[in-house]
Structures are given as structure tokens and as C-alpha cells.
């Protein structure tokens, strides 16, 4: 028998980007309740995110804070093997904080700072589910810091821009198809595992212009740049049978997790004696600059090579609509809806990002108990359309459906 230097070589399927499934549109409670619209109208200091140009229209300095809970859950089914799975229930808590307003009373200049969560959720499958060699769990999070300056040119035009520093983390666990005496499955499961963990950061900007042809008709145009979240010196921790320890040494890795660029056009119209405000936004999201993802390990062996997974995303156009109705001086009601087409093309739908077209519905209430103080609440429900798709790189296919419920509570105070 030929004696071989043996090591298992196989594909590492850990695939990550901040795909649509990890993008949160939860940066403002009122906007969340209105289907995610908010480019055209300045509701509060969260306009720092939705349209920096709107900051130039703030009358006072405002402090704004909100916290949310989001509970996503994804179900998988494969009728070919009669296998089904559903992710474990997890609750994530994104938050947002804004402060901003005119530098002095009636000034045309405004300054602000936004600290907001753009990604912060994950999926956790059962450790022994059928797709474990691609992903067992994944968590991606990113928080942005955005100092912002705005200038109200005249009553018609207000412009603003902010520099964005994003910081976040990634955490991915997957099984490796090498095992010891016990083999996969059961309580003595000794499949190998890989745990990738790293911090990410990146830079970008957010700019916008708001147009106000009349008191009841406004337009907004914004552009949020792509942010390349670079992960350097992340840790790759392998747990493999002892004889393979030298083939899979614990090491470091580098990768890039891009947040896509988004261009938005919005319109807002107020009617019914100023009680009803209607908003429509269109997001054009530029996904297709990511046609692959690379994970570069700092140590290489015959088994451990840099991972290169193909990704072919398409750009998406997301329509959003929302309404705000003032019941009186104290209470307002909001509702909205959106349809978010998936950027992930068929053949590339992997179980770490089982993305599909999403339908969003939302409602909310704001209460203004005191003149300067407002409480905001919102609830959003998201469901994907049931998607039967494949991930050809991993030879994996199935039907997916994701649902998520988001609850949000916020307050702001005008000085």
C-alpha cells in the first residue's frame, strides 16, 4: 500500500457578505412604521440617516434614541431528501442615537451625529442539520458613526453630507467533513468544525439633498456609498481529529464584507388639512460589485487554502410607501409597506444567506405628551416569499422562507 502524506482537502463554504438578509432598515422608528420611507420629509433627527440634507430643516437641536428587537427565523425544506429545518429563535437588539440641529437659532448651518445599526442579526441552525458543512451559525453586525453637516441654501433646497465610520463583527461556525471514530450525528458527533471570528471596520459617506417646492410637497435624493468592511486578523479556530491538527492549524484570516451603495429618491405629500402625509421612496441598491467573496488565511497547508466563493448579485430596486396620520396634537398613527426584491440570483442562494424577495408591512404610533417630547413605537413584519433555489457551489438546494418581527421604541426631545 502506497504510503501517503494524507490530509483532507475540501471546500470551505463559509460565505459571507452583508447581503440583504443582514441589512437592517431600522434606523428611525417613525420611518420604520412607514415602510422604511423617509428621504423626502424631515420628521426628526433620524434624518441624519434617511437624508442628511433634511438636517438643515431642523428648527431645534434634538436628541433622539431608539431601541428595537428583531426576531428572525428561517425555515428550510428539501423534498428530495424529505428533510426540513428551522433556525433557532434568536432576538437581536439594534439601537440608534442621533443628536443634531441648527448651530444657532435660525441658522442655515446644522450639525449632527448619528450612531445607528445597519446590520445586526444572524441565523443559528441546529448543529447537525443537513447544511452544516456550509453553515451552522452566522452573526454579522455593524454600527455606523456619522458626523454630519447640512446647509439650507434657501427655502427650496437643503443639502447635507456625513462621513461614515462603520464598525462591526462577524462570527461564523460551520462543520467540516472530517470526523473521528464516532462520525457525524448523535450526541457523540465528532465532525470537525471551523469557527471564524473577526472585527470589521470601514469608511464611507452619506449625502443628500432635500427639495421643498411647497409646504405640502417635498422631494429627497440621497446616496449612501458602499462601505467595505475589512476584516483583518480574524481568528480561524479549527476543531478536527488529532491526526489532522497540522493540516488545519488555528490561524488568522482577512476578508472583506461589503455594505452596498444605496441611491434613494423620495417624495412626500401632505394633505387633508395637514393631517395626512404620504411618502414614497425608491431605493436603488448596488449589489453587483460583489461577484465573489474571498477568505484569505495567513497560514496555508495542502488542506487549508484561501477560500473563494462565487457570488453573483444583481442590483435591486425597492419601492416603499408609507403614511402618517395626525389624530390630534398628541397622537399620530403610521402605516407602510415595501417590497424588497432579493439581490441573490438563483444558483447562489446559500443557507448562510437564504435570501428571497421580501414583503414588508409596518404600523406605528407616536405620542407627544409634552410639547418638546415625543415617544415613538413601531412594529414591522417581514416575510419572504417561499423560494425554491439552489446553491450550486455547494451542491445544495431547498426551499426557504424567512420571517421576522421587529418592535421598536424611541424617544426624542427638542431643546
Amino acid at each position, binding site marked *: 500500500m*502506497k504510503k501517503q502524506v494524507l490530509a483532507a482537502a475540501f471546500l470551505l463554504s463559509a460565505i459571507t457578505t452583508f447581503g440583504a438578509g443582514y441589512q437592517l432598515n431600522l434606523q428611525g422608528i417613525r420611518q420604520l412604521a412607514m415602510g422604511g420611507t423617509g428621504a423626502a420629509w424631515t420628521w426628526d433627527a433620524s434624518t441624519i440617516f434617511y437624508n442628511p440634507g433634511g438636517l438643515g430643516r431642523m428648527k431645534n437641536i434634538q436628541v433622539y434614541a431608539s431601541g428595537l428587537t428583531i426576531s428572525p427565523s428561517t425555515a428550510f425544506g428539501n423534498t428530495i431528501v*424529505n428533510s426540513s429545518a*428551522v433556525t433557532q429563535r434568536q432576538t437581536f437588539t439594534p439601537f440608534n442615537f442621533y443628536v443634531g440641529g441648527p448651530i444657532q437659532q435660525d441658522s442655515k448651518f446644522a450639525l449632527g451625529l448619528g450612531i445607528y445599526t445597519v446590520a445586526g442579526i444572524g441565523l443559528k441552525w441546529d448543529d447537525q442539520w443537513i447544511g452544516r458543512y456550509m453553515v451552522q451559525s452566522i452573526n454579522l453586525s455593524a454600527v455606523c458613526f456619522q458626523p454630519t453637516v447640512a446647509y439650507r441654501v434657501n427655502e427650496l433646497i437643503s443639502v447635507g453630507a456625513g462621513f461614515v465610520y462603520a464598525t462591526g463583527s462577524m462570527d461564523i461556525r460551520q462543520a467540516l467533513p472530517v470526523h473521528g471514530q464516532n462520525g*457525524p450525528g448523535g450526541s457523540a458527533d465528532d465532525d470537525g468544525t471551523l469557527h471564524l471570528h473577526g472585527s470589521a471596520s470601514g469608511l464611507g459617506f452619506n449625502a443628500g439633498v432635500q427639495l421643498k417646492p411647497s409646504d405640502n410637497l417635498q422631494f429627497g435624493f440621497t446616496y449612501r456609498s458602499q462601505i467595505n468592511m475589512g476584516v483583518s486578523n480574524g481568528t480561524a479556530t479549527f476543531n478536527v481529529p488529532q491526526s489532522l491538527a497540522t493540516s488545519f492549524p488555528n490561524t488568522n484570516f482577512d476578508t472583506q464584507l461589503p455594505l452596498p451603495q444605496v441611491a434613494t429618491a423620495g417624495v412626500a405629500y401632505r394633505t387633508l388639512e395637514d393631517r395626512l402625509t404620504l411618502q414614497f421612496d425608491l431605493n436603488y441598491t448596488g449589489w453587483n460589485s460583489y461577484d465573489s467573496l474571498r477568505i484569505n488565511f495567513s497560514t496555508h497547508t495542502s488542506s487549508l487554502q484561501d477560500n473563494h466563493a462565487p457570488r453573483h448579485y444583481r442590483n435591486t430596486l425597492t419601492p416603499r410607501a408609507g403614511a402618517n396620520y395626525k389624530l390630534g396634537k398628541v397622537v399620530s398613527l403610521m402605516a407602510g409597506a415595501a417590497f424588497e426584491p432579493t439581490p441573490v440570483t438563483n444558483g447562489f442562494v446559500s443557507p448562510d444567506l437564504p435570501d428571497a424577495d421580501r414583503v414588508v408591512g409596518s404600523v406605528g404610533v407616536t405620542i407627544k405628551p409634552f410639547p418638546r417630547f415625543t415617544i415613538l413605537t413601531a*412594529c414591522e413584519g417581514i416575510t419572504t416569499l417561499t423560494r425554491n433555489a439552489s446553491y450550486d457551489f455547494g451542491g445544495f438546494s431547498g426551499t426557504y422562507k424567512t420571517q421576522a418581527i421587529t418592535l421598536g421604541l424611541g424617544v426624542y426631545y427638542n431643546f
Partner: protein
Amino acid sequence: MKKIFIIGAVAMIFTACRPNIQVNQNPSAGPTADFSNYLAIGNSLTAGYTDGSLTVSGQLHSYPAMLFGQFALIPPPHGAVGPFIQPLLKGDWGYPGPKYILGMTYNPCNPADSSLAPIPNTGASDSVNGDYHFVSGINNNQINNVGVPGIRAVDYKVAGYALYALTSRAPYAARFYNNVYGSPNDELVHVVGNLHPTFFTMWLGANDVLGYALAGGQGDGTGNATPALLPYFYGGSDISPLVAFDSCYDLALNTAISTGASGALINIPDITSIPFFTTVPANGLKLTRQGQADTLTAIYASHGITASFNVGANYFMIQDNAGKTRQAVPGELILLSVPDTSIKCHGWGSVNAAGVPMPIPNNYVLTTDEIQNIRTATTNFNAYIKYEANIHHLAYVDMNSYFTKLASGITYDGIHYSPAFVTGGAFSLDGVHPTQRGYALIANEIIRTINSFYKSNIPSVDINQYKGVTFP
């Protein structure tokens, strides 16, 4: 008040929000097939042989056992009903010899050079004595898996095959044959008579070319092997004569369908693509200095043999079937059975320490013409299997094409499989037989063909629940 209402509504959404994918696909047998009594006919691949031996784990994860599990998902009356009787061994040590396991081995001419490689299982045998005779005790010795390691299609007429196998070959048939003096076809008649199979799979024929290939093409390769020792018993290291293959295959098949069973005939893979023949590269002679190359060229020239050597990878010197020494040419295959120490320490494939030419002996080499003999025979045998499938209206599983696909790599549920030895995941430590996961790939290809031919709806097996190669 409104707020309370909304909170209540939210709570309701929370409890309702749990997506769910229905996978109840209603397994069905299709309009004509009936899987209630399933019989598997075949050789070591059907028995569940893996890692160079037979073990109870291998048997329990044989592809027929997997198929039975899936057939059992079909509701009555056409789904499989238990039990599925296999002549199970008691242990996992290996039967009759030890299976291979992975262990550290040391290069005898350089003890510092150690590597992980297949070694014989250590410890005491746990199967041979207690399991020598298998009697199922159910339904007049019902057996559903008559996979006999080593058996060829042409063995089906050999009277006393089990006894002969007992003395000179692996004693598998004798363990569970009802009448060891009969032929394998007599046993099949007995099994079919007891079981009245409604569905069968038959994967015979690989050994009709494999014996020749494993012996390095030492038969004459023309398909004219003659009976030796026993009437009808053709030489084991030669390719079975096509006429004998056809008539014996036909005999076994007619026995299998004699009670009206439908079934699937599985053809013979191209065995030259399995790791046993592809692991040791024919151009594995590495030279680092031009001086080495010049010396080798000169030594062989002094023996009247033209060979060219250069710095880098060179084709080994081999002995062809006529005993002539020459350099291997691209496409020729060195067997995994070639002693490692002979190449590493004794200069096989080049010259030894004393400068004497040491061509790799012909029983470790498949030359171009031998490979052609194997491929021609495989093509002929498969043509007959396909012909039989057509005239008897049986499903024809083109495993040959599937293995060709595997040779270029298959990715299935997140695992990449290839025919690479040990690392490829599909083949076990003997380089010939699949791992459990390899058998599961095979089971799914059979299911796919059955579903397509019989318009049945049988779920695939979850390959990821089975084992690949076990690492220490």
C-alpha cells in the same frame, strides 16, 4: 387603549411568526413498481464492503440497506416492509481479515519521514468464529442482500462456488449459502423462491474486469480466459469471456425476474478511474539534479533501453506484460498495491543503489493495451446489461457515467467528492470500495434512475448523516 390593542396584536403576530416548509412529498411507488419485497444481487459493492474488508457497520450502511430504508417510506401496499435481512457479522474488526484504518507509518529508509496512511486494523478479531455460519431464522432463511464479495457474473454457474470460495478465496458465500454445494444461481433460485421479490437491484460484472486489473493485467486480456480448477470457473486474474459473461448474467437475471419482479440493472463503472489505479502517479520519479538524470539515461542506454530523464517529474521505468523494460507513457497506471518501500528504498521505477535497473514489475502496472482491454470489456459487458434492461423493461442505472462525473468532482450538500485517495471522501481506504458516503451517493443515483423509469417518488438519502473516512 389603542396602544394596548396594538401590543396585543403584536403578541399574536409573535406567536404566529414561525416559518415552516412542508416537505411531505408523498413517497409513492409509481404505477407499476412494487417495493414490498426487495432483493439485492451483487458483489462486494452490494455487500457493503469497505476499507478492504467486511464489517457489520459496512453491511448496515450498504447501499441496499439504504435503498430499503427509502423504499420503506412508501406507504403500503407497495412500500418495503421489514425486516431487511443481511448476513450480518458481529463486529467491526473486519472479516475475514482486518479492515484498514488510518495510522502513522514510518519510511523504513528514513524513519524521520512519517505519515498518516492505511494500516491493518489492530486488536483482536471479533467476527470470524462467532459469525461463521449465518442463519437468518426468518421465513425459511430469508436473505434480502445476496451481495457476495469477490463474485463475478461468470461465477453464477459454478457448482460448489461457496466451498471453493471458502478454501481459496474470501469465505463470504459459504457463510450464508443454503446449499454450499450448489452454484450461486442455485442459491438465487432458493432465495427468489422464498422471498418472491417484487423488486430487485442487480449490480454484477465489476469483478469480471477488476480481477484482471488488480493483478496488473496478468491475464491475456483477450477475454479468452479458460476454466481452471472447476468446470466453468474461469481464471480469476483474467477478464471474463464475453460469451460466458452474457450467458451467466442472463441466467442470474432470469432467476431474479422468475417470480415477476421488476427491478434495476446497474452497469459497471470504469474501474481505471478509482483511486487504486490513480493514486500513484506514473510520472512519480522526481529528479532534482541534471546529473541524476544523465546517470539514469546512461545506465539504461548501457542495457540497450532508450529512456529519457530530466530534472523534475519523470515517468517510471516499468516492465510490460511481455517482460520488456521500458519507460511508462502518459495514461499508464501504477497500482496502489505497489510496495511503498520498494519505490522509496529500493529504487523501483529507476535504479537501485548499485545502479541496477529496477523496473516496476508488470503485476503493479496497467499498460496502455491492458487499460484498453479493461475498457473494451467494460463497454461490451455494459452493452449487454443495457440490452437485458431493454428487453426485460427494467431500469438501467448508468453508474459508469456517474463515476465519470465523480472523477471530475461532485459537490453534494456542501461536501466536495472526488476519486482522490482518502481525501476525496467517496472512496475508502482500500482505494476500490466506496465509503459510507460514497455508497450513499450511489444509492441516490439508483433512486434517481428508479424514480425516472418507474415514475415513482422515492426520497433520496441524507448523505451527510453517513461516515466518510475516519481520522484518528
